[in-house]
């Protein structure tokens, strides 16, 4: 009886070790996630005054939220901007990365080189570098002199007219030409997604393709009937990843940070962060709901 350790069953021992292994994460989760999350909720519902002897927190109800939505000049605009951005970009990024993954999965000369180029954005398009790149003056100067002084949108303008005359709906045309103009943003944000899709495509068993080829399916049909259903769970994964990723690099983050650290309005800043979180959650759950109904699972 004294040797309690020895008398544990195999399952109990594993459970004990499991808990020990999770412990570091659990500590971090409590200390750096759960407690701050609750504190942030409390801050968002109170007025915070920083004084020499510490901070004074008084409960004021939903005033901060109302303040953010009705009084603050930039919150509504930034929030709608970033939501519109996500709604516009996410389908493009997912479709584009699926297309590229299919392309990069085929055999051709220089595939290894092409692959390593396409994953380069994973390294380059994060954090400050992407931010600084956007306002590079020299880049614009060179672009201007390269295209003969005219604006760079001229190429898509021609295409736009052409497509409108061909009778394509105006909204679709604007969406597509906008996508062409934003090609760099889209390419640079789809590195990880291409990787995930590529990995998924490679797990599809080649027998399926062989069988369909025997039955006379073209490559086009094989894509819609085999590749797409087989990677559909990953479409869900990628949509979620893209939404989370594009939200974490949006203007909103900057606004929340300046409100908190430059204006020292911690209450308002927390309220903004919570509204932002709720917005993300709504978009995530809507898109998950729509996609997960169409996802094909093996079992």
């Amino acid at each position, binding site marked *: 009886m004294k040797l309690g350790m020895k008398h544990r069953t195999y399952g109990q021992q594993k459970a004990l070790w499991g808990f020990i*292994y999770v412990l570091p994460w659990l500590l971090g989760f409590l200390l750096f996630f759960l407690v701050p999350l609750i504190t942030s909720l409390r801050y968002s519902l109170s007025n915070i005054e920083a004084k020499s002897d510490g901070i004074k927190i008084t409960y004021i109800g939903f005033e901060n939220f109302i303040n953010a939505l009705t009084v603050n000049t930039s919150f509504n605009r930034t929030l709608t901007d970033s939501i519109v951005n996500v709604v516009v970009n996410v389908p493009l990024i997912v479709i584009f990365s699926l297309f590229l993954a299919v392309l990069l999965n085929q055999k051709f000369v220089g595939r290894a080189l092409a692959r390593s180029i*396409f994953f380069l954005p994973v390294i380059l398009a994060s954090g400050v*570098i992407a931010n600084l790149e956007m306002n590079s003056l020299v880049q614009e100067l060179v672009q201007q002199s390269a295209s003969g002084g005219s604006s760079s949108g001229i190429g898509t303008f021609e295409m736009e007219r052409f497509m409108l005359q061909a009778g394509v709906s105006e909204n679709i045309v604007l969406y597509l030409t906008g996508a062409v103009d934003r090609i760099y943003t889209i390419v640079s944000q789809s590195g990880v997604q291409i990787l995930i899709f590529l990995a998924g495509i490679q797990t599809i068993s080649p027998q399926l393709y062989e069988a369909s080829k025997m039955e006379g399916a073209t490559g086009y049909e094989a894509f819609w009937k085999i590749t797409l259903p087989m990677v559909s769970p990953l479409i869900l994964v990628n949509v979620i990843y893209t939404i989370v990723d594009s939200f974490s690099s949006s203007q909103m983050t900057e606004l929340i940070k300046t409100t908190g650290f430059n204006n020292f309005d911690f209450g308002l800043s927390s309220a903004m962060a919570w509204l932002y979180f709720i917005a993300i959650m709504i978009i995530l759950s809507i898109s998950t709901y729509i996609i997960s109904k169409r996802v094909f699972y093996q079992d």
Partner: protein
Amino acid sequence: MILARLLSIESWKRGLWSIVRLVLIAGLSFVILYPILQKISTAIKDKSDLYSPIVIYVPEHYSWDNFKKAISIMDYWQTLINTFSLSTMTTLLTAASCALAGYAFARLKFKGSGLLFFGVVLTILVPPTTILIPIYMNLKDFSLLGLVPLLTGGKSINLLDSYWPFVLTSLTASSLKAGLYIFIFRQFFRGIPKEVEEAAYIDGAGVGTTFSRIMLPNAIPAIVTVLLFSFVWQWNDSFFTTTYLTSSNVMSLQLSSLPHNLSIMLEGGVATNKDPFYMSMVQDTGILLAILPLVIIYLFVQRYFVESIERTGIVG
């Protein structure tokens, strides 16, 4: 006859498709590489070439001037060492703690581990902005639920502007995007056959030995993926770094304050020196210098990188 014609149409189609593919891939590769090439072209240009109408990409006068300026303003070598040590440290600690947690969530189930894993998913979904301010306050008066004041005699310590926030968060698997890494590890460990593990148990290995001698060597693809992602993201991260560190020289910090430092430095010189295009030129050089180490590392590990994620089983 008919067969031959059919064959030729097939081969025509294939040839056409490979041309289309080539154009697409070459074009998109160009889109990706263009900013880098352009930065290189800007960086080796002399200042006089900036307004020369005949110079667009290939400079007329080559010069290392921009590099020298950017290096001196960014305090490049010191910054490089600092960033490298910071990233390496957080990467190693994060990988270790996430591997432990991932293994436990995959194989060592206990009561409530499902609920805790939901917590992991939650950490992926909640934007870091939401919890930024409380974390900041927490680190500023770090008391560890009232333990630290007991040791130091009633005073909480200020952990900001040191490497401690990074050490603590990565040691406890809650640093930048750690939820994602735990997820990757869990998926991977779930993919390793149970028999391998059971064989080890039957041979008398404990949980610890099984994990370190059997499971970890099998999980090298996942480890490489996590190490790479975590290193790169830590290197580029400005969100947490600007919050935790205020005065230390780290690459992302130096980059974000480069425009400011640049204007201060040029202010002291001749008035005409302060030219927005010239500043942008040095700034581009700075970006190039900051990503250069990453690109060099990437060149060495890219093959492994691409292959490893295919084998991590995020997919399966």
